[in-house]
């Protein structure tokens, strides 16, 4: 079974469970007249909502860590040049130049590999 199919099934299962709980709640309150029946649907929705919230937070943290990881060597290079007395503006310029050249190099390599050039 593919990942897409599993995700779709999980989504349908969540929707099905919520609909079932809502139907039970409505039946208990309106048909049976049980006014003190607990609000199971909204409570369950609050719980289930914590999963996508956790996923969003996890993706955000990973993206930030990845950005720090990519940025780290350039920052380290800049700091090293600075700590050995190079002018901040010059150190920053060289570090920026390296970043620009690296990005251009990666783009060119991808373009060559894909046959766009």
């Amino acid at each position, binding site marked *: 079974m593919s990942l897409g199919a599993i995700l779709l099934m999980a989504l349908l*299962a969540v929707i099905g*469970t919520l609909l*079932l*709980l809502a139907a*039970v709640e409505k*039946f*208990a309150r309106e048909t*049976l*007249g*049980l*006014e*003190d*029946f*607990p609000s*199971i649907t909204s*409570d*369950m929705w609050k*719980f*289930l909502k*914590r*999963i996508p919230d*956790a*996923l969003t*937070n*996890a*993706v955000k*943290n*990973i993206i*930030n*860590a*990845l950005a*720090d*990881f990519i940025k*780290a*060597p350039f920052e*380290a*290079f800049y700091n*090293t*040049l600075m700590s*050995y007395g190079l002018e901040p503006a010059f150190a920053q310029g*060289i570090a920026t*130049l*390296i970043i620009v*050249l690296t990005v251009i190099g990666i783009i060119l390599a991808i373009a060559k590999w894909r046959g766009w050039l």
Partner: protein
Amino acid sequence: MSIGTLVLAAILIFCAILILAAAVDAALNAIIEFLEDKHLDWMIDLIEWLDNNAGPWWDADNNRFRIASWLWDSIKYVISQYIIGYSVYDEWTGKKYYYGIVGLIDYIADQITGFLLKYRIAVIDITVARAIAAIMLILAVIGAIWAIRKVIT
């Protein structure tokens, strides 16, 4: 029997138990209201005793049974703590603890971010830095010459 059928059966049984508990609540509360109206001494004593000694299945403010709500609160606690879960950092032990699905998601994210943090290049030796700077300058000069020649020709 598949997992889906088992889960569906568990949800239906749980709903049936909740409806039953709510029905018991309604019946007991109706009896209590009826007896309260009679102003019986033993009934007043019983309610007072329940107010002081009963567990969370008794609503002491309104003098009512709340077995269904208590049952749902207990199930909610289990779902919230152990199935949906959470992650928490313990300052005393310096460790992070993970529980349930949210804990698993947080654990995977923490492993990835921890790996990236551990293996990122935070320090560059001055010799390497000088070499890189020199190469960059040479490349910049070559690039400039190439660009000037391109413009001229």
